[in-house]
């Protein structure tokens, strides 16, 4: 199986869409009447949050597939998706804090449900890698990690709901549920940013999958050519899935 297919096209599409999004953010979308220039942070913060949460959900779906079929490739797909989503989640927390400092005068507000629920989801997934690392047997590691990914995935919709149901209304709603949401220019900019971020996620996911696949193919080749002793690192403990 190869994962490098269409990677070049995806990379170009991601680069073009993200560049287009940046151009729209700074040269097309107007400044927010209420927040002013600081609102531009949302064009990167919100797409990152949506894609990160979507990645966690994708990881959970792949984990379900792994438990259903027992095929290790689904475990790898789940692992890479969660790994990338966690990196994006770090970006969400930092950019969110920067916005909060500029808008509210505080880096973090503990009584805001949206922030705290996202932090809970982040901390939950932060234990995913240590959990995998703590289990030496690859089969058991993959199975336990899949169960974890499914259970943790159930918390993700709660984060989406927290944004909608929060009564404090301190955290702004980017996609309004009623009339009076974003004007057309802002909405277009936001959607281009969201598509760009989603494309970037898919590109990096395929990139990492291709890299892991190449590593395993190489180890298999080394084993075939030089014998089992030539691949000492395979038996060692690792958080990453070990073979397809």
């Amino acid at each position, binding site marked *: 199986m190869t994962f490098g297919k269409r990677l070049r096209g995806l990379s170009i599409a991601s680069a073009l869409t993200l560049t287009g999004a*940046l151009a729209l953010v700074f040269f097309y979308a107007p*400044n*927010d009447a*209420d*927040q*002013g*220039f*600081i609102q*531009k*942070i949302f064009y*990167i*913060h919100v797409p*990152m949050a949506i894609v990160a949460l979507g990645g966690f959900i994708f990881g959970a779906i792949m984990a379900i597939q792994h438990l259903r079929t027992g095929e*290790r490739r689904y475990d790898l797909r789940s692992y890479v998706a969660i790994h990338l989503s966690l*990196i*994006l989640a*770090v*970006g969400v927390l*930092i*950019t969110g804090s*920067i*916005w909060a*400092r*500029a*808008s509210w005068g505080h880096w973090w507000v503990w009584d805001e449900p949206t922030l705290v629920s996202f932090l809970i989801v982040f901390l939950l997934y932060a234990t995913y890698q240590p959990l995998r690392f703590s289990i030496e047997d690859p089969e058991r590691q993959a199975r336990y990690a899949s169960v974890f990914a499914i259970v943790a995935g159930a918390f993700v919709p709660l984060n989406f709901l927290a944004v909608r149901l929060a009564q404090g209304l301190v955290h702004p709603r980017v996609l309004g549920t009623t009339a009076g949401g974003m004007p057309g220019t802002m909405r277009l900019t936001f959607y281009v940013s969201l598509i760009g971020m989603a494309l*970037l996620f898919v590109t*990096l996911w395929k*990139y*990492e999958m291709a*890299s892991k696949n*190449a*590593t*395993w*193919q*190489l180890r*298999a*080749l*080394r*084993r*075939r*050519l*030089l*014998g089992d002793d030539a691949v000492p690192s395979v038996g060692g403990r690792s958080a990453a899935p070990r*073979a*397809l």
Partner: protein
Amino acid sequence: MTALPLDEAGKYVAAAYLVFLLLLLVYVAIMAGKLQRLERELTELSEASVSTPASETREPEAAVQ
């Protein structure tokens, strides 16, 4: 909410976008390290296959499960 003046808000907006860029660059750097290791292993393997006569290499077997 009172909007911050542009010179003040600009710093925060720049910082947020730089964070994204930094994360992306760190990720690319880590992946570059992995690619470098892969290339080194491939070179070693290529050299080993040249120095080992074909008859001494093992019969192909199922590589990964």
